[in-house]
């Protein structure tokens, strides 16, 4: 095969254009470096009328928004999903892991929930606190300046609460709660569970001239055409281009491996151009991997050479290990006091206006780590599924269920907006035996060996899920609601979703000071290859009960500053 080489030598090649790659692109291009961004999916701009799904009505989709083509429904902006044609992954020993990939400029930041939480000092040093897992080599004070910069650059709404485990930031003001959220606040307080305004990255107040201001359509998962929510393309990569940065974007380009020289240093990457299905090589002085925790691990493991026979920078054999996702379990409630609603526009921002941060001390509990509670409900746009079991809630009143005729209109209106739910998102303990590795028998349609997963929840996570279910039931009762469906029991791990389902997978290239136990240093620089950096969530030592994006952004900025500084000192 003839592999095509390009003569340009980029200062930096960035693999992946999501949160970690986007931030590295912005900071490094703004510093004047010549940057190549290699993205496995197509170009995406939510303002492009051809790509835009925002403000579409359900009936503009022939399937009315059903999830047959996109797993989160027709209007969700993620191109990809749990399964992608031609890009399989496999499992070991009958274990389960569901891997969500979004192939497009901006990656998963186009559709994510925008929940933007800072890790606390305890989150970085949890082993010192409870003996489980490992401490990070850095603490809150190392990351705080970057969290502050991210807040100011991108925008996050929230409120100052002075909670020790929920560090405050530079917040835009939050929106007022919706009706069902007021019921949640009431019920949760009665159960001794605190509730505070959400912390999410939508621009509720002007943050700069490049970004629009939220107009409350509630559709952030569709990506915002006025750039009022955070996506890596719209908020980082486009501005980097606009400010005159040298940014060359290679789309539909699937990186196969990092190329190295005789000294074992990176010289660039090879990738498959999905359009002509040929392999190409790009040369760069520095390689930043930001393809997502598992994809970056896959690239490293597939980058075998004489100098790196076990995969790039993997003599420790740690690449792929300590994979961990947030836990997730949910419960749904019917609230009779929310029946017979009068209609008004309560779309709000995309997602919840209030949430519950972790509020208990695990030293008094039978599981080591906490969870936060997310709330959903309201009178949103009817889409596929609306009207299913239209009057099933009649069961709570002992009246007839089913039937046909005009009474069903009245049933639909009576119950519209009376169902809500809550979801727990918790911290799992990173374990060496939960990992991804290369499947020796399988390649994808580009001929690249694929990942094989091995992942099991432990009793830590199961007991945490049980606690979630008990808490949900109590809160539902205290807000005057009725639980819907049977309580998930031990037979279903208390409703604990498969690992991977929360799409917070982290830890596969973890950071540390001990080179035998970690892959990168505190600046996310590979121990064994000093011109390769990893700025996705792979370097996370633990994930906290927080969504990882804000920390990915902060650490990517910190790493990018370090790269600039090292270049100035001519250390790279």
């Amino acid at each position, binding site marked *: 095969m003839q592999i095509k080489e390009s003569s340009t030598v980029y200062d930096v090649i960035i693999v992946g254009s999501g949160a970690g790659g986007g931030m590295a692109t912005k900071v490094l291009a703004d510093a004047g470096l010549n940057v190549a961004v290699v993205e496995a999916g197509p170009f995406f701009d939510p303002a492009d009328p051809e790509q*835009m*799904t925002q*403000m579409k*009505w359900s009936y*503009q*989709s*022939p*399937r*009315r928004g*059903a999830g*047959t083509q996109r797993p989160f429904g027709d*209007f969700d902006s993620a191109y990809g999903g749990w399964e992608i044609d031609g890009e399989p992954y496999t499992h070991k020993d009958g274990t389960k892991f569901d891997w969500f990939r979004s192939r497009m400029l901006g990656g998963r930041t186009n559709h994510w929930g925008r929940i933007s939480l800072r890790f606390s000092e305890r989150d970085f040093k949890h082993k010192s606190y409870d003996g489980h897992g490992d401490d990070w080599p850095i603490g809150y004070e190392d990351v705080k300046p970057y969290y502050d910069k991210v807040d100011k650059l991108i925008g996050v*709404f929230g409120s100052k609460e002075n909670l020790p485990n929920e560090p405050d*930031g*530079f*917040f*835009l*003001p*939050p*929106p*007022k*709660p919706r*009706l069902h959220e*007021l*019921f949640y606040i009431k019920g949760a307080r009665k159960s001794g569970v605190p509730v505070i*305004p959400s912390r999410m990255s939508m621009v509720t*107040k*002007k*943050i700069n001239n490049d970004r629009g*201001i939220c*107009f*409350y*359509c509630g559709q952030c998962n569709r990506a915002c055409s006025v750039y009022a929510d955070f996506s890596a393309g719209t908020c980082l990569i486009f501005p980097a281009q606009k400010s005159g940065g040298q940014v060359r974007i290679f789309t539909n380009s699937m990186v196969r491996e990092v190329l190295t020289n005789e000294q074992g240093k990176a010289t660039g990457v090879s990738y498959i151009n999905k359009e002509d299905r040929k392999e190409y090589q790009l040369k760069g002085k520095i390689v930043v991997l930001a393809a997502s925790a598992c994809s970056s691990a896959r690239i490293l493991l597939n980058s075998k050479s004489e100098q790196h026979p076990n995969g790039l920078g993997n003599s420790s054999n740690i690449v792929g290990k300590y994979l961990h996702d947030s836990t997730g379990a949910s419960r749904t409630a019917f609230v009779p*006091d929310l029946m017979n*609603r*009068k*209609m*008004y*526009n309560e*779309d709000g*921002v995309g997602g919840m206006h209030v949430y519950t941060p972790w509020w208990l001390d695990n030293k008094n509990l039978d599981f080591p780590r906490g969870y936060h509670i997310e709330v959903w409900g309201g*009178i949103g*746009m*009817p889409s596929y599924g*609306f*009207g*299913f*079991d*239209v009057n099933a809630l009649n069961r709570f009143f002992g009246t*007839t*269920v*089913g*039937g*046909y*005729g*005009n009474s*069903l*209109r009245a049933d*639909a*209106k009576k119950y519209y907006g009376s169902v809500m739910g809550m979801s727990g998102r918790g911290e799992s303990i990173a374990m060496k035996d939960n990992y991804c590795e290369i499947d020796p028998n399988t390649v994808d349609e580009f001929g690249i060996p694929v990942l094989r997963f091995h992942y099991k929840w432990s009793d830590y996570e199961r007991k945490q899920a049980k606690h979630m279910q008990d808490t949900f039931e109590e809160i539902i009762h205290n807000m005057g609601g009725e639980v819907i469906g049977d309580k998930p029991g031990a037979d279903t791990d208390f409703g604990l979703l498969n690992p991977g389902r929360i799409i917070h997978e982290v830890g596969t290239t973890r950071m540390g000071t001990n080179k035998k136990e970690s892959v990168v240093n505190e600046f996310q620089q590979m121990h064994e290859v000093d011109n390769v950096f990893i700025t996705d969530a792979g370097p996370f030592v633990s994930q906290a009960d927080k969504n990882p994006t804000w920390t990915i952004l902060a650490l990517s900025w910190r790493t990018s500053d370090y790269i600039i500084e090292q270049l100035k000192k001519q250390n790279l």
Partner: protein
Amino acid sequence: MKRRESLKYIVLGSAAATMPLQGCENEVKTEKVVEPKKSLPAYGRTEEEKDHDEQLLEKQFFNEHETQTLGILCALILPANEEFGSATDAGSVEFIEFMAKDYPPFQTPLRGGLMWLDHEANSRFDKDFNSLEENEQKSILDDIAFEVEKDESTHLAQGRKFFALMRNLTLTGYFTSEMGIKDIGYKGNRPNVWDGVPQEFLDQHGVSYEPEWLEKCIDQSKRMIQAEWDENGNLIT
């Protein structure tokens, strides 16, 4: 249709169900002229998704008889009232036709359910469901439309399963249509400025905002003013 003919249909129907796609394509060509509908107005599809939609739109799953029955059923499930049309008027039949192709697991339950309905109609009245008087049609629906304490082991249990699926698809088709969204009263999907639940609805549901919570929230009159903070993160604009 006579009983013997309906039995012929059962045989053809089950054969068609085992190889549905080919069977339907042939049916389309010989029995019905389908107006070609090559593409839909843009709703943010990728090229692959556009191709998929177009392929489905070119195929016809339900035959003419089945489509007619679906129309009658959708209008019985949700008939017109003074203000709004029926589910059939709102396009539920076209929606169900599309879903049967987009989600193949619907195909056999729907097609088989329609045959079940004709069989039941023939058993009771010696006619297809379509040919019955409305009160006769309703007499069958009355036996399968309601949830029962224990779904007894009579043949009606299968009819109930089918009808529950039909009702779900009919109503979701209706309430996600332009007409249905107007009917249900959804007021969103347009630019606005959220400033909390209007007082009258807070009162209706017996809840209120706490002053200390509202103090943290956005003053919407200042939303266009550039955000600035003091060094402690207090917003000063």
